[in-house]
């Protein structure tokens, strides 16, 4: 008895590639990846430049000394002088972000420290008064005939950055991988719904079941069809992500010191994770959609999967959960954690192997359940 898996696969692929909606889901969703990567990079860059340029309007409720005037110019601070009441009013109307009051030698920074603008302005003025303090100390020491430089710089401190990635590049790569998972999930949802609940609703499933084909061949053929469509989305998303990383490295100064780098091995491992995740999510989508009577019902049932695919990974990424042997067998989380490792340049073969083996076990269970369903008429009604 010849297997009909290939014939079913041919039928599924033909239907997916001839259906405009399936095709657009498969090919258009990956276009969101460059938008996300370049958009987030632009946002980070604007936040970085904002800290220096946009929060430098500072009020002074006292007369500036000549040293302070020089320092204000050097640090590109836009000084607004006036009474305390006037400055308070300007702070309330966001004309300035901080004002300084002075009593003898005690300076008070008045602002809303919890706000974004207040935080940046406070940081700026702390730096300003540290510089001013040093200036006054140098003057005082020089006046009493001491070598100010030797006393003030009795020790020196430098920061040597040994990290290959900076915060921004890690953040961007981490989120790009999560978004690839989300794209695969969305891409699997439509053909999985169409090939199960859709066929049932259109009445073609009954026709298919009259053919001399084993339920196993029907399910495996359908699963392979949806999986191939998901893999295309995943690989296309990865390729677009890699191109976007290159573009981002060249376009944004935030990546100047530590550019986004993905090694060849990391790319290969990413493709393996994409294949494993595509098989898993396609099987899950088919299993859920098979239980639904209509296309609409299946779509409603599958919508939460998009969030389930995204949130465990996002939480793990934000909290900083690291991949372990146990976590590598937990569905959804395992793919996210392996992707997270890859984004940090870590390739843990054992975790990847556990992820792959556990996926095969889950998919075998899923296929068994769907075959059982297809052997009874429940799948039709």
């Amino acid at each position: 008895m010849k297997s009909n898996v290939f014939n079913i696969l041919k039928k599924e692929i033909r239907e997916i590639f001839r259906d405009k909606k399936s095709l657009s889901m498969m090919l258009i969703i990956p276009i969101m990846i460059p938008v996300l990567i370049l958009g987030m990079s632009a946002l980070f860059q604007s936040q970085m430049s904002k800290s220096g340029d946009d929060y430098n309007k500072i009020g002074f409720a006292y007369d500036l000394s000549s040293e302070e005037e020089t320092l204000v110019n050097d640090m590109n601070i836009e000084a607004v002088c006036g009474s305390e009441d006037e400055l308070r009013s300007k702070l309330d109307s966001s004309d300035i972000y901080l004002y300084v009051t002075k009593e003898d030698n005690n300076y008070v920074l008045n602002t809303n420290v919890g706000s974004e603008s207040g935080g940046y302005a406070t940081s700026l003025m702390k730096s300003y008064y540290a510089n001013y303090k040093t200036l006054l100390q140098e003057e005082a020491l020089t006046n009493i005939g001491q070598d100010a430089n030797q006393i003030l710089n009795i020790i020196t401190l430098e920061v040597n950055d040994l990290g290959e990635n900076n915060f921004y590049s890690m953040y961007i790569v981490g989120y790009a991988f999560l978004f690839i998972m989300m794209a695969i999930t969305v891409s699997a949802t439509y053909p999985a719904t169409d090939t199960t609940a859709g066929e049932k609703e259109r009445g073609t499933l009954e026709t298919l079941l009259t053919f001399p084909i084993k339920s196993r061949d029907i399910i495996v053929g359908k699963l392979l069809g949806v999986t191939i469509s998901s893999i295309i989305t995943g690989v296309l998303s990865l390729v677009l992500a890699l191109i976007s990383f290159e573009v981002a490295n060249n376009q944004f100064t935030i990546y100047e010191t530590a550019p986004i780098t993905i090694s060849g091995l990391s790319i290969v491992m990413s493709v393996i994770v994409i294949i494993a995740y595509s098989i898993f999510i396609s099987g899950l989508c088919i299993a859920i959609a098979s239980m639904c009577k209509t296309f609409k019902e299946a779509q409603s049932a599958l919508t939460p999967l998009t969030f389930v695919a995204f949130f465990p990974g996002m939480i793990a990424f934000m909290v900083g959960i690291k991949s372990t042997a146990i976590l590598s067998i937990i569905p959804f989380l395992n793919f996210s954690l392996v992707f997270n490792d890859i984004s940090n340049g870590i390739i843990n073969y054992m975790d990847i192997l556990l992820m792959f083996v556990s996926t095969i076990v889950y998919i075998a269970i899923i296929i068994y359940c769907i075959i059982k369903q297809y052997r009874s008429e429940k799948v039709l009604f």
Partner: protein
Amino acid sequence: MIKVNDLKKKFVKQKNKKEKMEFYAVNGVSFEANEGEIVGILGPNGAGKTTLLRMVAGIMNPTSGDVQFDDMNYKKDEIKIKKSLAYLSGNTKIYNSISPYELLRMCAEFYEVKKDEIDNRIQEISRILEMDKFLYSRIGNLSTGQTQRVNIARCLIHDPKYYILDEATSGLDIISSQIILDFIKSEKKKGKCVLYSTHYMEEAENICDRVIMINHGNIIKEGTPDEIRKATKTSNLRDAFFALIGSDNNEE
């Protein structure tokens, strides 16, 4: 030969919010259909015709009883049986995104028709059913009659031994219906065994060798159209049917 033995199918339906009710859509039906014979399954809507034929076609599992095709049964020879039968209903849907040629090719591959014979077979069937004009058009763009002709072609592709036709002419115009009836008659001549369900009594009278009348899942009469007319002292199957069901009537 198709032999149906005491076939039953139980369904459970919701009577009200709390209670469920069991009922038999087919309740102990037995009959035989031989080679070169067209056996009509007649009955009103809801009589159990479709459930009965779905079980015979292997789409539905019976609650009890069995169906034998010569010496084969579904428990042991499901794939073998399906290879030798064709199932067509008035509601049978086919894939809209492909052409009749692609559909027939796909079906031929499912039925394991020899590769070098597939194209000749498609061309021959296309000529018999006058499908040449739309053989390469998308099925979604065809009329109801043309689609049903494609459906018949699908049934013919593997030259089956048994036909299970469930209200195959339902909703078709007289020309399309006639094409199907001619096809059934020609297959009968070739010695094929045909189970044909309909609620058009005149149609059954015209083509069936034997008729099985069912109502509420039970056989209420079985015989040749002549035998049934004589037994009920009526002049046609329509009147015979009403005479048999009396006041226990659904809609015809």
